[in-house]
């Protein structure tokens, strides 16, 4: 069953007078339990595609069905709600909120779902244990290594039990050993049934995925 499907997707950026067509005609679908790597040269639009899949942005043309809902016509609030309910983001630069502790960072998506404080706390404790950072729950990001930060970010992405996890070069800032730990974590999540879409430009990383999607000049070559 397809949980995410894009048809004839276009994304154009307007830069003053000129417009840049970053994504020209993308049709693509992901099944439940999929593990896809998006590859392509720098500037080919990988992040742009991922942001569209993550409902952070709306396509210029084409449709995007997520869990059966066409999101290209939704309001800003409705998109926020979809992100809150169905999407888990992992970024290259971790993007933890610096003044919050590990546990508070993991609680953020739960907070926006309107969960009670007790529930937020219970769930985030569970997750911080799962990524092996139970001892660091009260620490701030400044006291954590890159690998640890990324594990916190993954725990946070899992907090709302999302339909898809979207990861934009999650190992890009890590050495290969730390990167491997992160990828092992991703593998485990996929084995548990999570759908994962990951942007990378390392073949070794992409090799872990079940399928590879290649972007070039705004088109797909699979």
């Amino acid at each position: 069953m397809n949980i995410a499907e894009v048809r004839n997707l276009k994304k154009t950026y307007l830069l003053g007078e000129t417009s840049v067509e970053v994504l020209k005609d993308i049709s693509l679908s992901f099944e439940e339990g999929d593990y896809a790597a998006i590859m392509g040269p720098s500037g080919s639009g990988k992040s742009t595609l991922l942001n569209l899949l993550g409902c952070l942005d709306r396509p210029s043309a084409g449709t995007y069905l997520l869990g059966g809902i066409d999101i290209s016509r939704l309001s800003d609030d409705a998109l926020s709600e979809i992100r809150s309910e169905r999407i888990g983001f992992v970024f290259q630069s971790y993007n933890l909120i610096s003044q919050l502790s590990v546990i508070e960072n993991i609680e953020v998506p739960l907070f926006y779902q309107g969960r009670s404080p007790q529930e937020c706390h219970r769930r985030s404790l569970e997750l911080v244990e799962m990524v092996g950072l139970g001892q660091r729950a009260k620490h701030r990001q400044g006291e954590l290594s890159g690998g640890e930060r990324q594990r916190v970010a993954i725990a946070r992405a899992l907090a709302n039990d999302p339909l898809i996890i979207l990861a934009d070069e999650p190992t890009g800032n890590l050495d290969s050993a730390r990167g491997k730990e992160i990828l092992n974590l991703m593998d485990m999540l996929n084995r548990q049934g999570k759908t994962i879409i990951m942007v990378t430009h390392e073949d070794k990383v992409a090799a872990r995925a079940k399928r590879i999607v290649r972007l070039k000049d705004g088109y797909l070559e699979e």
Partner: protein
Amino acid sequence: MVSFRIVRMIKLGIKSLILHKLRSALTVLGIIFGVSSVIAMLSIGEGASWEAQKMIRILGSSNIIIKSVKPPDNKNASTGRTFVVEYGLTYDDAKRIASTIPSVKAVVPMRNIRQDMRYRHRLAEGQVIGTVPWYPDISNFRVSRGRFLTFTDMHKSANVCVLGAGIAKKLFAYEDPLGKEIKIGSDYYRVVGIMQNRGGTNARGGSNITVDEYNFNVYIPLTTARRRFGELIVRRQSGSFNMERIQLHQINVRVASPELVPATAKVIQNLLERFHKKKDFKLIIPLELLRQAEQTKRIFNVVLGSIAAISLLVGGIGIMNIMLASVTERTREIGIRRALGAKKKDIVTQFLVETVVLSAGGGLLGVVFGVTIPFLVSHFAKMKTIITPWSLILAFSISAAIGIIFGLYPARKAANMDPIEALRHE
């Protein structure tokens, strides 16, 4: 559910404000000044009207008080020789006012003489007031024990007196004054009554009129006063004797109703001017005091109101400025929150809560300072101030409102940022 979110937001707001303690403290200075000026302004205004109302209660709203004043043009009084200045209200004035003006209901003439009084070895200084039996009726002032002066006392020029509460206490600590004899000047007077306790006021509301120290008055019949003390008052002044001849120091006039007071005052003024060549009397109209108090209040409202308005405006702009800086600083955080599911209104709320916490915190400090300013004003400027609870609530609400008004723009700016741009922000 909503309440726990707000609590959470407030905690978050306090947290990020504490992160920049000095910055936050400097930002709220304007709010602190503004809020404390609002409270000071309202308390001074409130105090001024309270004083005026108290004066009116004491003096009577349908009374006109005429006082003898020393005319300013007595430069011809050459130093070194004895010279008698004759001025002031006369018995004839009192009679004329009583008999010719229909709206006048009663006239109370008074002679005031400062004297030492003695009871055995105890000594007190007070004001001897020679007056008439109906004095208490028009002064809203009552005898608490014994009786007031009577017509018989007047006819006989009897040596009787009624003591003010303060002087009674001073001369007769534990004894019952009634029936005892006290010495005033060179004569003995029998105490026949004691007045109820009534203090004066220290009103300064623009007028320099103060109410007599009622509690230290001693009342004797006017006829007795005239006979015993005469009309000549001798003052020793820089080596020369200064003598004044005054018949009456004061005439209290009760008018039929408060509405007739201004017109009657005018008639009295004209009447007296016909018989007084010198400007040796003045009229005090208690209702007028209220107008003066209102004027004082207006002046303070304008001065302190402008300070408050400017401080609050500057404070508000300061808050807006800081919040704009904070929004820029935290662009990345905003992007992250949006990616994790925050709606625009969640971001607006977050920043608004932060500004309101900031301005309300300043407001709270302002209330603390605002409560102390009136204390200092009453202490140093001897002005009555009254802090009402609603003025505190009003001032505090203003500070919170400032937070909302000036926080709205930065908060909306934060919420309207493009999440992707915000995430990319370095």
